[in-house]
Each structure stands twice: as C-alpha cells, then as structure tokens.
C-alpha cells in the first residue's frame, strides 16, 4: 500500500494537519502536500479513469507532466475540472473528485470499453459508424461524446467567484525555471546589473536538485539554493516569483507568465491568477527535463510510476507509493530511486536494467547494498488491474517469454530524460537529436529570433540537454552572462560554483519497446499516451496505414493531444513511429510545440475584462438620466443610446409611436451627443474638405451648414453628416455615432500619408460637447424661453448656425433637421451638459416635452425620406444608388471614391436604386425582405429584384412605410412588387417616392 513515511518530506510541515475530501471521503494530509502526495499518503493510488477505455489510472508523475491524476476541484462558484493533483497544493477543506467514470471511480460502466479494446484501435471511428447515415448525429456521436470528455462542465448558471488580472512587466532578462540552472543563470545575469525576472511554476526554489542530491561548493545542493535565493532577493534589479509558470514565448520577446496567487488559498483577498505579459530582452529557459516512461505491457496499471516521481514523493513529501518497488530502467538515474527507497526503509526486490551491460557506479552501489540487479532484462507484463501486484520478467532482447514473476506493489520506470524544450520551441527555436542521450535538445545555432533578428531565447541546464550538477551550473552561468551582455550589461567574471557530480554513469541505451520484440498482445497493452489511451500498437497501425508524418500519426491516433500535450508520450511515440518506418528519429521530426506549456485558466486570459469591465461603455453627460428614466438602451458602437423611453406598462413599440407623435405635435428632445464632431482647420482645409466629401465644401459660407457625404476610396458610402463652416479656415464636421474615430482616422490617414504637404490640422472634439436635438413645432419657443440668443427665422435661417449664451450657458446652435420638423441642435460644453438638459426639460414642461430615442429618430427620418448610414447603406452602396447625385459635386475633379465610382459595375444601370415602398394592405414590410422576380438563376436560387433597407410603422401616416433598393426602381413608380415573408406568404408593396413627410420642407423652414 501507499503510505506516509515516518521520515522524509522536506517540503512538509508535519505539525500542520490539513483535512480534505476525495470523492466525498474525508482524508488528512500535511501542510506542504500536493493533492497527489496527500492521496498517496491515504493509500489512494488510483486517481482517475482513462479517456477511451476507462481504465483505472494512478498518478504517474509528480509535476506538471502528470497525465492521469486529474480531478474536479472545488465546488460551486469555485469548481474547476481537470486539475492536476500533482500541481495542486493541499489546503484545508479542499474537495476533489475523480473524473470520467460512472457511477464511481471503483465501479465504472464505461470500463466495458476495455473489453472491446480490440475493436477500438486507433482511428476506428473513421472506419465505421457510417450507416445508416442519420445514426451519426442521433446515436453514434452522442454516445462517443458522452464517453469522451474528461471533467464535468462547470455549472452554467454559476458565476466564477474569483477575479483575475494582468500585469505588464519589462525586463532585460527573463529566467523561466527556478531550479539550480535558473537560479545560477539569474545570479550571473543579476550580478551584471541587468533587470532580471525569475519565474518558477512550483511553490519551491531549487527544482530537482535537493532530491537528486549532490554538492555545490562542498555543501549540499539545498544550501546552495538557499544562498542563491538569498543573494537574488537582496538584489534590487532582480524579481523572484514562485507559483508563476512561463506559459508561452511569443514573437519579439513577448512572454506570458501565469501566476497562481490563491489556488492554494481559495477565497483569499486579491486575484486568483495573474497573467504576466512580459517583454524581455532575453529569455532563458531553465525548464529542466522530464523523465520518460518505458513502453511495456501494463505500464498504466496504478502503482507504475516514473522513477523520479517515486523519489520525489519519498524525499519531498515523505510518502511511498508501495512497500515493494521493482525498478525498471535503461539508464543509471533510476538507481537513485532504488537507493532513496532503501534509505527510507522500503523494499526494492529487483532492479531490471534493460541494458545488457548494466549501469555504472550507482548500479554498483545498489548491488553493494544488497539489491538484486538483473541486466538485459525487462518487464513482460505488469500484473494487477486496479493496482500493481507484481511484474513478469523477460529478456529485453526477446519477445516476452516470462522468466519469472516478482510480486510487488509499485514499479519505478525510467526511459531516460527529455529536456523541456517547449518554451524554446514556441517561437521557432529548432532542435537537434542527441542519439547518445536519446533526446531532442535545443540547437543554439537556430534559436528564436526577435525584432532585431538576433536570438532572444537561450536554454540552459537540463532544458538544454546538460545533466550533472557541474555541467548544469556552468551552462547556466554562461547563459546568464550571455543574456546580460545581449541586453547591454557587463557581466562579472565570476564563474559557476564547483559541484561534486556522482561517479561515472554508464550510457543510456535506447529502449522504445520492452521487450524489444514484444508481440502484438503485449504491444496492445503498452501505453504511450496514458490520458488519450494511445498504445504502441496504435502508432504502429497508423504508420502501416500510411499516416507517416508525425502530424498524421498524432492526429490519427490522438497521441500527445491530451491535456498534458504529450509531455510523457511524444518522444516515445515518435520513436515507435520511426522504428516502423525504418528511419532515424530526427527524420520524423517532432510535432509543433504550442503555447501554453500547461493549460492556463480562461479567467486569467480575460483578466479584468468581465462584467462591467468587459468592454468600455461610453456614456454621454445625460446617460445617468436616461437610465433613471428606465430608458431601453441599445448598444451603438461602444455607446449606449436610448432606443425609447417606455412609461410604466408601455410596450417599446407604443413608446416609440408616442415619442414620434409628441415630437411632431409639439416638442421632442434627443440626446445627440454621440454624433462625432471633428474640427478641420488650416490654409488648405477647403481643398481637403472637397477631397473628403463628395459635395463641394470649400464654397460653404461661414455661418452655414451643409449635409455632406463621405465615401471610401473604394467608392462606397461610409459616413454622412452636417458640416458647418466656423470661420474662414475652419470647418466642423459632424459624423454618425461611432463614426467619429473612423472618420478621424480616415482624415488623418490621407493627411499623413498622402497629402502631408497640405497645411491642415484635425481635432476630434466629439466629447467636448453635449449636443441635444430640440425638435418640433415648439422648439423655437422653448429655446427662446431659455433666452439669450435671437433664434428668429431671420436671425437663424434653416441650415445656419450661431453662437451665444442660452440660459446662461455658452452654446453653439445649429438649425438643422433630421426629422423634417422645425429643429435645432444645441451644443454646450460637456461639463454643462446635464445642467442644460435639466433646463430644457424644465422649460419644455409647458410644451409636454418628450425625450425620444433612436427608433423614433429613425421613423421620423424615414418619413422625411432621409437615408440612414447602416440601414440604406451596408458597405456595398454608393451615393448614386441612393439618388444622392445632388450631393455629388460635378465640378470637382477629384474626391475620395470618385475614381472607384467610375468602374464598370458602379456605373451599371442594373444597380438597384433607392425608392419608397408602401404595402398594398398598409402593413409593415418585414425587415430585410427581398422583392422576387421571375424564375431562378443558374444555381437554382430565386431571382430577386430589390430589397427592403428599412421599414417602420409610421404613426404620422398611420401605415407601414419602407425604403428599399430596387432594380430600375425610380423608373417604376407605382409598380407593385412581391416580397415573400419568412413563412412563405407574400406581401405586396408599391414603389413610391421615398419622401412622405412635408416634401416641400415647409415645416422645417418656418
């Protein structure tokens, strides 16, 4: 059984008991435990079920590479699926549940899949489930989906109780990894005065060194680590972060760090995760190495673990995975595990060394201490289902004939080490295959390059394929110094400290299958990817079927695509593939390493941008007033505008109709502050305005206003608005809501990149002013009541503007109309916006003043036949389509869009043109309806001859009115068109003039 040992556990505070639950069962661990170590301490070796066959699975590793021990962590608003038990720090009250089984971890219906395993080889689903066709959607797929997936989904209606944030950090040197390599690199760089940031994903400094032993400068590695951390902490130019993982390396020195602030203390103040967005001059990846499993039958039975992990559990957390551990290896490192187990008083009945020649000094030590060591031998098969009960031994060279069975309750396996090259590779760092050490290691000559074309990532230590303390420290010291130099700092002369490496190690021997001639039955039980249930036989099948590229194999078998992203399986799978294809491993190449290194929370990626901060909401000066009136608001760009102001019990439709009538009868108020306002000033402003607008603007008289159209260079209508000439060299351009930034950018683009010799300045003063539409027959009266400015017809005629002090507030008054009514737009400084609005409401009381929203605005403009950008235009419409030729100057040689409008399709008489539409029965035409023509086109689609661009019920005319674009429309007045509704019925509408209201402009001109 697995249990807590009396000794060991350097990371534990054994005096502090921590209670937690697993699948509802109460358990106890110690402060300093991970969930995995605590579960082992409670003899819970089996921690989950696999993805495909639902096989029982135990913890294999001790860190971020763990494929099996995934749990649903927490409950309610803090539930999270797929948390690795090995990287989950234990805390009081932790509640975890194992995944992917029903009804329970021990008795899982899905495990029936195991019985069919033979029928479920790699890619089986591509070859079946095709008949009958409808069964895929209704039978096969739902079944597959239900049995796949891992953890359960968080509840849909529960909201994440935690917060997240981002932090932008700039540094000369970023060191990823806080093992001895990272610390030494940081020291070397930090001593030069360079700014250094060190990230370590675990809560501890030092990495593997304290477990693996060895001495630095004559002292235990742990002492070196403590001293290094102390020295770094004392440097002002160095920042150290624990629980902070280097998640991804991106272009130009951009690195994401993922700091888990309160995963180990849920509910603590502050954010749960912080995403570091780092710009680093140089990045050092000191990310260590990961041990590889060996591929033998039953290598997934709970109790089979990486040799290094078993060692970690004993040394770091004082837990044993079993009492009797068989060690199986192809290298010397695993002997360390055997010795550590012995030291802890545990039994190691046997070491199986697949190498015919056996190991070096460590092997001698193991033998000397009485351990039976068998060379040239391996595991034929692991005995046991939910727990290891023993191993069957065979000759590595053979096909798996069992020589002997040895009872045990744990297996420590080691297939060699793979440098963690993920971060090196994210941004294009290339790898070389080191055949002696059987690993891919960074090729320093092909490092990722940054904005200046120079390398900006360097790997060091085990991540660089260096093993042994001396080599690691030396490599790291060089990396730190080189990075310091690359960022303009002068590193000191100080070299790396001297370390005492263990004695001679015998070379590793490549073992990709155990035994090397394992028969198909064994290969079908030899796992490569634990989580996705990919076996040696699957990769071999894929290669046989022609899925030869490593990407094909990966995708066909799903090797390496699980939540561990193949940290344990990729190299083993690649080697199996290469062997089938009879080609060297480097020729097969690796799959691409993608960020993040381990999964990071979506919450952290979203950061602070949630709820009210999801996106900015732009507010006018009377936004609060609108909300206080319970206005129904609609998003327009980032603004929110009142759609209408429904009274209690009133429908939106009714409110809109009321607002229109009240405005037309007496007085309406519109918050028009969102309209863009741009000032264009300078000696060349006139000719610039003539280029920007289709109209002639240079001849607009000071004091006057003119409606203008703006097109893109591609000819399409992009914006419209009223332009006022403020002075001889200054124009004020109104844009649509949300158009201000776009139009401003459009102007600046041409000013800066095309006509940079023209003397013009443009300023966006949209938000300087609150602007209100005062609309209706009583609009003049209410403004006169406020007093201060002569607004008589003579003093301020239609399409003129004036300035003055209205009601004591400095104002600019435009006499313009978008409704056909007598109407003014009054601009006041934004700081006075609310005050002026209040005065308007107060003065307007006697006229029944009615604030109205965007929908009433739309209806009134439609009644008057004005087009609306975004309704009549959609990015494919040119002014000529809308009968706006009057607003296109014939005199000008050029304006933006003019050349485009001369292209053959733009001048084609078949382009649909704007008309009014009236239903024969007075009803409202459906939004977006099309007028059908005769027959179908070559693709069998119904021929169409027009469409509705905007459609309303007009309270003024008491009938439906619409505008639309129709083939030869203006020439077909009076013709009736058929518009199918979505239910297939037809509504007929007559082509009419699109100006319904006061065509002669008598109302607005009073």
């Amino acid at each position, binding site marked *: 059984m697995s249990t807590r040992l009396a000794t060991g556990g350097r990371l534990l505070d054994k005096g502090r008991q921590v209670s937690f639950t697993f699948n509802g069962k109460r358990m106890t661990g110690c402060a300093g435990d991970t969930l995995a170590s605590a579960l082992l301490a409670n003899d819970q070796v089996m921690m989950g079920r696999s993805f495909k066959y639902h096989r029982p699975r135990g913890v294999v590793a001790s860190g971020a590479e763990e494929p099996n021990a995934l749990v649903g962590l927490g409950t309610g608003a803090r*539930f*999270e*699926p797929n948390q690795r038990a090995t990287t989950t720090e234990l805390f009081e009250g932790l509640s975890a549940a194992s995944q992917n089984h029903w009804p329970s971890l021990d008795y899982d219906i899905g495990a029936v899949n195991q019985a069919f395993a*033979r029928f479920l*080889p790699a890619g*089986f689903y*591509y*070859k*079946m489930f*095709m008949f009958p*066709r409808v069964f*895929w959607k209704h039978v096969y*797929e739902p079944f597959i*989906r*239900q049995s796949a*997936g*891992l953890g359960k*989904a968080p509840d*849909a209606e*529960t909201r994440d109780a935690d917060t997240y944030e981002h932090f932008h950090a700039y540094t000369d040197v970023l060191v990823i990894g806080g093992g001895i390599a990272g610390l030494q690199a940081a020291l070397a760089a930090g001593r030069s005065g360079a700014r250094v940031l060190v990230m370590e994903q675990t809560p501890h400094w030092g990495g593997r060194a304290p477990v693996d032993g060895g001495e630095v400068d004559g002292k235990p590695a742990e002492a070196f680590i403590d001293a290094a951390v102390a020295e770094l902490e004392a440097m002002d130019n160095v920042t150290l972060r624990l629980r902070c993982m280097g998640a*991804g390396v*991106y272009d130009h020195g951009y690195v*994401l760090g993922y700091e888990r602030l309160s995963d180990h203390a849920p509910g603590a103040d502050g954010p749960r995760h912080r995403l570091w*967005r780092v710009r680093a001059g140089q990045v050092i990846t000191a990310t260590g190495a990961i041990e590889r499993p060996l591929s033998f039958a039953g290598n997934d039975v709970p109790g089979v673990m990486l040799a290094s992990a078993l060692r970690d559990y004993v040394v770091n957390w004082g837990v044993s995975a079993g009492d009797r551990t068989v060690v199986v290896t192809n290298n010397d490192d695993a002997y360390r595990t055997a010795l550590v187990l012995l030291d802890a008083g545990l039994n190691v009945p046997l070491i199986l060394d697949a190498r015919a020649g056996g190991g070096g000094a460590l092997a001698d030590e193991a033998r000397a201490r009485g351990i039976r060591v068998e060379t040239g031998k391996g595991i034929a098969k692991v005995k046991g289902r939910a727990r290891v009960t023993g191993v069957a031994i065979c000759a590595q060279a053979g096909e798996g004939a069992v020589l002997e069975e040895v009872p045990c309750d744990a297996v420590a396996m080691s297939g060699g080490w793979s440098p963690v090259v993920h971060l090196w590779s994210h*941004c294009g760092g290339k790898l070389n295959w080191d055949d002696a050490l059987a690993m891919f290691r960074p090729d320093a000559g092909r490092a990722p390059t940054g904005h200046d074309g120079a390398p900006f990532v360097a790997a060091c230590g085990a991540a660089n394929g260096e093993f042994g303390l001396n080599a690691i420290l030396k490599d790291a010291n060089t990396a730190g110094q080189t990075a310091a130099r690359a960022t303009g700092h002068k590193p000191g002369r100080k070299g790396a400290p001297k370390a005492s490496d263990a004695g001679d190690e015998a070379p590793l021997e490549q073992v990709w299958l155990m035994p090397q001639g394992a028969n198909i039955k064994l290969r079908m039980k030899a796992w490569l990817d634990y989580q996705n249930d990919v076996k040696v*036989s699957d990769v071999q099948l894929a290669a046989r079927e022609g*899925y*030869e*590229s490593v*990407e*094909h194999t990966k995708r066909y078998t*799903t090797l390496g695509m699980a939540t561990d*992203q193949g940290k344990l399986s990729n190299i083993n799978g690649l080697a199996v593939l290469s062997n089938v294809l009879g080609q060297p491993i480097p020729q097969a190449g690796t799959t*691409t390493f*993608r960020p*993040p290194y381990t999964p*990071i*929370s*979506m919450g952290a*990626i*979203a*950061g602070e941008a*949630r709820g009210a901060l999801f996106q900015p*909401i732009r507010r006018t000066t009377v936004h609060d007033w609108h909300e206080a009136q319970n206005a129904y608001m*609609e998003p*327009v760009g980032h603004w929110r505008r009142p759609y209408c102001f429904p009274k209690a019990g009133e429908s939106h439709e009714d409110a809109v109709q009321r607002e229109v009538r009240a405005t037309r009868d007496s007085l309406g108020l519109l918050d028009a502050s969102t309209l863009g306002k741009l000032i264009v000033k300078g000696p060349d402003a006139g000719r610039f305005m003539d280029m920007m607008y289709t109209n002639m603007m240079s001849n607009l008289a000071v004091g006057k206003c003119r409606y203008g159209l703006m097109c893109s260079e591609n*000819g399409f209508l992009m914006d419209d608005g009223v332009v006022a000439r403020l002075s001889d060299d200054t124009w004020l351009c109104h844009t649509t809501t*949300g158009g201000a930034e776009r139009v401003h950018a459009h102007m600046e683009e041409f000013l800066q990149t095309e006509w940079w010799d023209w003397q013009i300045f443009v300023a966006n003063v949209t938000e300087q002013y609150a602007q209100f539409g005062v609309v209706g027959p009583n609009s003049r009266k209410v403004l006169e009541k406020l007093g201060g400015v002569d607004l008589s017809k003579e003093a301020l005629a239609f399409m003129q503007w004036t300035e003055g002090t209205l009601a004591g507030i400095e104002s600019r008054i435009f006499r313009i109309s978008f409704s056909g009514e007598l109407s003014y737009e009054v601009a006041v400084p934004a700081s006075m916006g609310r005050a002026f609005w209040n005065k308007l409401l107060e003065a307007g009381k006697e006229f029944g003043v009615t604030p109205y929203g965007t929908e009433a605005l739309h209806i009134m403009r439609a009644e008057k036949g004005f087009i609306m950008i975004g309704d009549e*235009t959609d*990015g494919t419409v040119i002014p000529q389509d809308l009968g706006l030729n009057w607003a296109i100057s014939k005199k000008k040689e050029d304006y933006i869009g003019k050349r485009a409008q001369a292209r*053959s399709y733009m001048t084609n008489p078949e382009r649909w043109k704007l008309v009014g539409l009236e239903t024969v029965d007075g009803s409202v035409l459906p*939004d*977006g309806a*099309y007028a*059908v023509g005769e027959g179908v086109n*070559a*693709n069998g*689609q*119904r021929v*169409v001859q027009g469409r509705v661009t905007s459609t309303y019920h007009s309270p003024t005319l008491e009938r439906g009115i619409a505008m639309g674009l129709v083939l030869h429309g203006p020439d077909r007045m009076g013709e009736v068109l058929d518009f199918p509704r979505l239910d297939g019925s037809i509504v007929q509408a007559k082509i009419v003039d699109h100006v319904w209201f006061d065509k002669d402009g008598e109302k607005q001109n009073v």
Partner: protein
Amino acid sequence: MRRYSAFAIAREAARYHSGWGKAWSSPEPKKKYDVIIVGAGGHGLATAFYLGRNFGITNVAVIEKGWLGGGNTGRNTTIIRSNYLQDPSAAIYEKSRSLYETMSQDLNYNVMFSPRGVMMLAQTQAEVRGYLRTAQANALQGVSTRFIQPAEVKKLVPIINLDGPRYPVLGALWQDRAGTARHDAVAWGYARACSDMGMDIIQQCEVTAVRREGGRVVGVDTTKGAIDCDKLGIVVAGNSGVMAERAGFRLPIESVALQALVSEPIKPCMDVVVMANTVHGYMSQSDKGEMVIGGGADGFNNYTQRGSFHHIEETVRALVETFPMVSRLKMLRQWGGIVDMTGDRSPILSKTPVEGVFINGGWGTGGFKATPGSGWAMAELMAKGHSPLTDEFSMWRFKEGKFIDESVAAGVAH
C-alpha cells in the same frame, strides 16, 4: 480499396489489425498528367476527387510540398455553415454543406459530419436587422435558416448568458443543418478516394516553377523533377500569392495569421456551434470534449503560423462574457493558421492570365466549410472552362468593382 465498415473492423480485430493496407499510396511522379493540382489540402484533394468522380479525369497528380492536409485543413475550427447573405456565396457554401451530408458515405471514410446546428447571435439592433435580412435571402436561396428568439437560444445553448451586462442576446440566426466535421478526416478521406481512382498524391514535393509556352502552361518543375501537364490548378491557401508569382501573375491577396485555441476536454455541455460576431468570439465543442474557439486575424502580413496573444485575449473575454462557465476552463493549446484575404474577403475561383492555369484561393476564414463545394466547383471550372458556382468569383471582379461582400450584415448604425 478495402471497404471500411464495422464488419471489416471486427474481422481485422481477430488478427490484431494486421491486415489494414495503406489508406493512400505515395508513388513517384509520372512524366505527365492531364491535370496537376498543387496543394494536397482539403480543397486540392476535393478538386481532384470531383475531377475523377464527375468528369472521369483520373490522370491527375496532387502535389504537396509538406504532408497532405498539413496546412489550414488541420488548423481550422471545423465549422460548416451556408447561411451567407450574397447569392454567389450562399450557392457554393450550400453546395458544400449538402456534399458534407453524404461525404462519409461517398468516401467510405467517416468524416464525422455533425449537423448539430450553427447559431449566430444577434446582440445589437443592427445585427437583428442584418440577420433578418440574411434569413430572408437564405429562404430564396434554398438555404434553410431561421431567426430565433432568445428563449429558443437558451434552450439550444443552456450555458449561454442571455443578459450580459453589455450585449443582451436579442435573437439569433439559426441553421439547424449546419455543423462541424472532423477536419483531418476530410483530407484523409479524399486522399484515400483519389488514390483509389488511380490518382497520384505526391507528398514532400515542392513546385518550384510553372513552365509556360506561348502563354500556356505545359508543366511544373518540382523538387522531384519536371512534370508535364495540360492543366494546372493552384489550390494552396496561405501561399497563393507565392505560387501565383511562380506562375507569372499577381493575385489581389494578402496572407495573415488567424488565431484559434481549444480548451481542455470536458463532458458535453454545448451541442451546437455558437458565433457571437459583435463581441468576436465563436465556440463549439468537439467530440473529444474540447471547446474549440476561433479568434481574430492579426492585422499584418504574416507567414509564421504561430499563435499570437492579444486576439486570443479578446476572444476569450467575449466567451467568458457570453458563456460564464468558460471562466473556469483552461486553454489547452493555441495556434495560428495563415489565411489568404482578398479585397472583399470572398474567395477567388478563377481562370488566370496563364491559359490552363486555374486558381482557387482567398478563402480567408471560410475555407474548411467550403471544402467539398470548392472542389466540386473547381473541378467543373477546370474541366469545362466555367461553372455557375465560380462565375462570380473571378479574379477580375475587383477591377469592375463587383464585390461579394459578406460583412454587410454587420452594418454600422447611425
């Protein structure tokens, strides 16, 4: 070709699957082919397949510089829909969607087409009007879509938050016969079927030059030697500009990186595909349980196929807002694919200035869903010289100012 079926699997299981042969052969190139297709992605393989299936042209080579299906075919978010606004788009995408329905049977390869339905959320009044218009257009185009109300949205997507503080869901355009498919399988299935018709799929072979005589194509130079042909189809998403240059003409195309990501797998929680265009996020759940998420495109020319971060950030926050439970999921993997963008963001399926050379590219973000329809139409264009499905997608439309602009449904309001 060995037929795939449950029975075949059962038979093979008895001998531990030792009897499966190659899904496709990998021969050395012949001296000459009637047709060479450059690019063994989904579109290129589909083009070859329909040349054989519909026109009996089987002396065909598909030449691929990397591995078949190794480009955008395997990098997209697998959405299949045809609820397009403009007639030419709706025609080719609906053709495509209908071919997906029977693709598994047609190819005898389960591509797992899952007609689970695609929903496009309307979150502003302008979007409501835009999607109503699309629904009207689709009805006349023979594309089955509906505009649905928020209550139905919630029923179909229980994890959605209808009342986000920023953009409440006002409705959605719903296409119930749209869905997803297994992207790699589409390429593999076509490759196997093409190989079965005797076509040559030549991987690890780069076309380095297009040989012309008198304005007409006569063959290509490749890293495996010169190969002659009568007709040449260039179907190389992401590299269209580079290949066009080798053929001696320019394309109105720019290459940019499009971002995508997946979450860790979870048990089924969302049965349909949801696209939220106002906030720039779309998401579906793969059969493996991963939430498959599409991000935006970088705003600059790029050939790196690497993931970038800030578009991912924008997408993820949109999804957290729309589906609050996403907040406690984790991003497993992110990547970038290079997509070809044309001036109107619609594809080019066209003859070219070089006689006998045809181009199929510029699919932007819409390539995967078009795979079979694109192949079908391209095959017709190459075999007959024109196709009603491709006529509007000529590379010369930009000169006339005749665009196929699908972005119009998201118009800008007042």
